[in-house]
């Protein structure tokens, strides 16, 4: 019965608003959905990193009989049942960014973390032609993106046997955690050639530590996320703090388009895996302009 | 004070009470437990914000609604319950609330040392309160009151934890104060003290003023207080026949504890027969409480042996002691005996819950009925057994403690200052109760600072000094002088 209604209500449950990447995603989603006047996005529900909260949020949206649901799961398994409930209630679901363990959704849109890890690894191989010593700052160890970003990276650097990871620790995605860890590494290891951090804030936290120790110019920093915010990775590449970062696509535009299609009964692709863009000093300025939404909406 | 009235939820504590104190005069305030004495004085000291009536000082109306107001008018009060901060030093406590913005430690300490010496306390002003004994704390409260520039000093049972020697020193202090024109209001249940110190006695009953006398006639005062004549004060007849030896203590030694000011016991031997009341006398810090506590299993003895009812008795904790039929009415009801925030029924049934278990469930009705009966028997002044213990008057709290132990039906009952803060009427009742217990074949071991009480009640009196037994008197052999002499038979210089 697509198109019969005049106004569609869409609910979105975000795993944690207060991460720069997710704040950006929220902003973009709101921006792109504004193009469709017949779609109303309810205030974004923030699970604040709690799966239990997120399950209730999804249930709340089902209770409110939204016309479509977007979910960015905190963790895959816990949300599976909730997504199944939505599916049983005949509400189309778009799973954004992280997967769930059921097929009963309408579309999945997300980046490929293994691929991004691999690209980062390839960049590391390029930056260290003669081999070298790498330290790795991980996200929360049990998070799937952490696992994938690590996996892809290790696969790629295997190309050069002279490259080794001499230390890795959990930085919990946080800048503040990364700085003291990097300080300790700098004390322990006279030679560090490259820091691979699973997100830009950790890379920047490590950069601060290295700069303080006067070793920042001897170390390359590679991050992931590439956000177009003043405090983000693209700017950091522009400023020469990071050697490279990789845009982890928010999928906001795709999600907006997909929702629109679903609501109007048009067919959509079920698996939409997004690519990544490497941010280098050359393309940084353009990319920033492309993704920056602060002037619009 | 004129026409003072005060209500608590459910209780009319004071109703139109007036009281005057002249310069240099000692007015004693007398009344049964729960008569409203402390409440009246608390109003004067600014503890309660709201009350009816008005207070006049030096001919002018004074508005006293906070302790600070009271202090501004030169009123100081020694409260019935000790009010010291355990983690602070003696000097800090004495000057609490009146320090300079930047502490003058030296000045405070030397002034505190002076005050302590004046009260005969040989303590460093830096000692923490938690390391002081109860009697010492009570004297520190006195020092605290004296340290202020007072016009009126209120003392609410200042001697309840003091032995004779300390009491006499306190009298000297009071006389010194009155000589300087300070008016003193003195609350005590020890009538013999009033004879010695009071110029005038004001009697209260049920929150009302009853009358006052300048000459002290005990019987008349008691009649006024209780509203009925009272028989003999110490009703116990000469030692009846006693039964088997119930408790035997041989060479009991308990190490002292520096941190908490606990006295050591040094090879104490004694025995108590069924049907016997044995008294323990001694000065403060003699170890009377330790002795009773050790028998109750509170402290782990370092040596010695005990037998109870013919069987070896090695209490590892109060729990074991209670299981063997021993009860201890502890010295400090607030700290050691009562869960103040809970009800009378809860407190009184706590050690005897086992008796009321049915299928593992507490038969609350049955327990309540028993508590009700016991509470009525002891004439606790309370609206119901669901009343919060902390809101009872001091003496009534003490009665709840007694009720609690009587409910365990003990065969040996240890009493540490059992009539502390108890009015004469109730005291007579408790004495009658002790006699009754003894008559019914129970053994009673009682530590008390009131020698007349011991002399009248006990079949035998043991005297402790520095943790040793220094004398034992049979009934009729003992005199106050002989006991005091034994109590001061020190063997070593006190190490503080």
């Amino acid at each position, binding site marked *: 019965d697509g198109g019969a209604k005049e106004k569609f209500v869409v609910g979105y449950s975000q795993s944690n608003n207060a991460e720069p990447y997710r704040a950006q995603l929220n902003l973009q989603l709101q921006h792109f959905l504004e193009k469709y006047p017949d779609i109303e996005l309810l205030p974004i529900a923030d699970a604040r990193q709690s*799966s239990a909260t997120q399950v209730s949020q999804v249930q709340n949206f089902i209770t409110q009989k939204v016309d479509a649901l977007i979910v960015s799961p905190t963790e895959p398994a816990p949300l599976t049942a909730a997504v199944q409930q939505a599916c049983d209630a005949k509400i189309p679901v778009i799973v954004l960014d992280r997967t769930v363990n059921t097929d009963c959704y309408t579309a999945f849109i997300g980046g490929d973390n293994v691929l991004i890890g691999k690209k980062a690894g390839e960049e590391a191989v390029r930056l260290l032609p003669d081999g070298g010593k790498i330290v790795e700052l991980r996200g929360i160890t049990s998070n799937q993106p952490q696992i994938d970003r690590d996996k892809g990276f290790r696969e790629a650097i295997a190309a050069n046997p002279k490259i080794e990871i001499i230390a890795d620790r959990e930085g919990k995605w946080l800048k503040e955690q990364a700085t003291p860890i990097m300080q300790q590494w700098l004390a322990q290891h006279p030679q560090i050639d490259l820091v691979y951090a699973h997100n830009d804030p950790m890379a920047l936290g490590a950069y601060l530590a290295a700069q303080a120790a006067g070793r920042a110019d001897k170390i390359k920093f590679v991050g992931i996320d590439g956000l177009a915010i003043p405090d983000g990775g693209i700017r950091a590449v522009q400023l020469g703090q990071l050697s490279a970062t990789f845009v982890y696509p928010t999928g906001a535009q795709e999600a907006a388009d997909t929702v629109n299609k679903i609501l109007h009964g048009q067919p959509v692709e079920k698996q939409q895996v997004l690519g990544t863009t490497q941010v280098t000093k050359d393309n940084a300025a353009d990319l920033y302009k492309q993704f920056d939404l602060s002037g619009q909406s | 004070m004129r026409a003072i009235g005060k209500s608590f*939820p459910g209780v009319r504590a004071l109703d139109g009470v007036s009281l005057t104190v002249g310069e240099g005069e000692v007015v004693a305030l007398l009344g049964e437990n729960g008569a409203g004495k402390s409440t009246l004085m608390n109003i004067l000291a600014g503890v309660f914000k709201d009350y009816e009536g008005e207070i006049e000082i030096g001919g002018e109306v004074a508005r006293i609604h906070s302790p600070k107001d009271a202090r501004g008018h030169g009123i100081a009060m020694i409260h019935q319950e000790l009010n010291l901060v355990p983690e602070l030093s003696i000097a800090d406590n004495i000057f609490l609330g009146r320090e300079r913005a930047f502490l003058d430690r030296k000045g405070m300490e030397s002034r505190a040392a002076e005050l302590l010496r004046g009260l005969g306390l040989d303590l460093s002003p830096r000692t923490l309160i938690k390391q002081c004994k109860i009697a010492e704390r009570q004297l520190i409260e006195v020092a605290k009151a004296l340290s202020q520039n007072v016009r009126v000093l209120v003392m609410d049972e200042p001697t309840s934890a003091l032995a004779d020697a300390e009491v006499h020193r306190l009298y000297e202090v009071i006389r010194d104060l009155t000589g300087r024109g300070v008016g003193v209001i003195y609350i005590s249940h020890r009538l013999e003290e009033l004879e010695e110190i009071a110029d005038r006695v004001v009697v209260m009953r049920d929150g009302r003023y009853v009358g006052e006398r300048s000459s002290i006639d005990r019987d008349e005062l008691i009649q006024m207080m209780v509203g009925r004549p009272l028989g003999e004060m110490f009703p116990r007849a000469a030692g009846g026949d006693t039964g088997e030896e119930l408790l035997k203590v041989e060479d009991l030694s308990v190490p002292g504890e520096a941190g908490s000011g606990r006295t050591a016991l040094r090879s104490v031997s004694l025995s108590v027969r069924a049907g016997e009341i044995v008294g323990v006398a001694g000065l403060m810090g003699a170890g009377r409480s330790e002795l009773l506590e050790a028998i109750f299993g509170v402290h782990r003895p370092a040596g010695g042996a005990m037998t109870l009812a013919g069987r070896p008795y090695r209490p590892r904790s109060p729990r074991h002691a209670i299981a063997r039929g021993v009860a201890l009415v502890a010295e400090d009801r607030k700290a050691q005996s009562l869960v103040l925030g*809970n009800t009378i029924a809860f407190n009184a049934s706590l050690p005897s819950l086992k008796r009321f278990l049915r299928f593992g469930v*507490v038969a609350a009705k049955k327990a309540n009925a028993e508590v009700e009966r016991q509470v009525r028997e002891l004439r606790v002044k309370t609206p119901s057994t669901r009343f919060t213990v902390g809101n009872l008057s001091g003496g009534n709290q003490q009665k709840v403690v007694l009720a609690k132990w009587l409910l365990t039906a003990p065969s040996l009952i240890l009493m540490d200052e059992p009539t502390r803060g108890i009015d004469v009427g109730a005291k007579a009742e408790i004495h009658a109760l002790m006699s009754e217990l003894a008559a019914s074949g129970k053994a009673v071991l009682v530590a008390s600072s009131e020698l007349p009480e011991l002399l009248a009640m006990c079949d035998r009196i043991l005297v402790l000094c520095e943790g040793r037994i220094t004398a034992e008197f049979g009934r009729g052999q003992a005199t106050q002088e002989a006991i005091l002499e034994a109590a001061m038979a020190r063997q070593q210089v006190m190490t503080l």
Partner: protein
Amino acid sequence: MTTKTAPPAPAKAPAESRLRRTLSALGGAQAYIGLVLILAVGIATKGDMFLNETNMTNAIGAFASRGILAVGVTLVILTGGIDLSVGSLLGIASMTAAMMLSKYSLEPWQIVPICMVVGAFFGFLNGAGTTWLRIQSFVMTLAMLSVVRGLDRQVSDNVSVGTQIAGPDGKLTPQAEAFQLFGTPGHNLFDRIYYPVLAFIVVCVIFHLILTKTRFGRHVYAVGGNPTAARLSGVNVTAVTIAVFTLSGMLAGFAGPIDAAYSASADPQAGQSFELDAIAAAVIGGASLAGGKGTIIGTFVGALILTLLDNVLGLNAVSDNWQLVIKGLIVVVAVVLQRPDLFKFFRGGSRS
């Protein structure tokens, strides 16, 4: 209230006192004001969408595991202690459940006791540390929080373990199927009864009875009210303290499988910061952190306040930042309204 219009005084007294006794067993009417207000706002703003079985089940189900923790924490708080480790204990119990299910294909009725033993074991250590080593319970359980979280992550190798285990035929194994009943949203026991809600209520009832009807319950209150007096009254303070920590751990162990089933997986981070919610539920319900004061009914009400507040704000699509602000404010208002002495003034001379 009604007393003014009631007939002669003597006749009314017994009825009133019975009512009053019932009320005071339930903690007095004021204890429910916060809850009633939230229900009223929920009904006023969302009507049937709020007040229906599904929504209530969802709301309470989401909080059930934290509610069960709150019951255990209440016991500890009553003795004057605090238990910060319950979140971690729930975490390791949920991991235990998931591993028992996935590695050994145990039946649910075997898994639950094992998890309870695991929780009780660590709870016992908490109790032992606070009594025998005389460490403040805050430090002891904070240390336990860290230790157990570390162990949880180590045994799981930092990977979350799913509970929806498929057999060779691609369908869920019978054990996994049965395990879903423990809490997977949409899976009910006996047709309509959602297990987490049932478990939470049953735990509340059992511990309410233990606290009010048994000697142990009175000892708990005595230890919290005045430990010295309790000891001198023959209460084994050490044993009671160890017991409450062990029970708290055991309940966390019991909540573990529920959390695992609810999330369809045991995350190595599961239960993180649940302790704050649990303590908040107890304290909003009137428990005093000084010990000796509090009830299970209060904790139950506190838990409902927290979860229904979330639910009402969520249904009304309040933005999340404002939700944080409003939630804090309402908790303050609820606590103030619930204070027993607030209406003393109006009730006149009666005491309670």
